[in-house]
């Protein structure tokens, strides 16, 4: 299994500002992803964080709004830019283990935009 530390665990932010979420894994992993969970909804994939290259975004998500960095195989950041109340969600990072295809998640960042 993989142990994932995600920070911050929660934050309340003013509209128009940006928040950067960090995800640290205790071992090197090839695949790392960022998800959004809007209130009362299921998880939606935002992007795949690629080490050493630009992230791969899903339909409906763009780099200007959700820039992602992945400088190495154990760390990634997701920035939520120019926030509006509609960005209030739980954001989760996920990795796939090296042994099989099991996915593991960080504890999530609960973001409220006021």
């Amino acid at each position, binding site marked *: 299994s993989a142990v994932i530390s995600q920070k911050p665990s929660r934050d309340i932010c003013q509209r128009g500002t940006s928040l950067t979420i960090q995800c640290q894994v205790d071992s090197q992993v090839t695949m790392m992803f960022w998800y959004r969970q809007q209130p009362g909804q*299921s998880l939606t994939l935002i992007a795949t964080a690629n080490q050493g290259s630009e992230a791969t975004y899903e339909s409906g998500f763009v780099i200007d709004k959700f820039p992602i960095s992945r400088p190495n195989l154990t760390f990634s950041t997701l920035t939520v830019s120019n926030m509006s109340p509609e960005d209030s969600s739980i954001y989760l990072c*996920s990795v796939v283990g090296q042994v099989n*295809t099991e*996915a593991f*998640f960080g*504890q*999530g960042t*609960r973001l409220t935009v006021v």
Partner: protein
Amino acid sequence: GIQVEQSPPDLILQEGANSTLRCNFSDSVNNLQWFHQNPWGQLINLFYIPSGTKQNGRLSATTVATERYSLLYISSSQTTDSGVYFCAAIYSGAGSYQLTFGKGTKLSVIP
């Protein structure tokens, strides 16, 4: 793309009761996971189960891949079992990986 359907969407149980949650999934799925999301939003891995049956304490899961469904059994439910249960179907192969979540079953266990 992969389709995942969960039922029921909501479930209320008296403490001590048993329940079965169902997950149907489409073709091209080669693995399946069950998660429990606690009230704080954390996703807890319950089972990684491509086929067959696994048990962990009061919880067990069965996946019948040929018929494209999985079941999660909760026995002697406790209030701490409350939360949302998600199944997620995995497709992996040819350098790609896709994890698709169902909409979840919201379980409330009342004393």
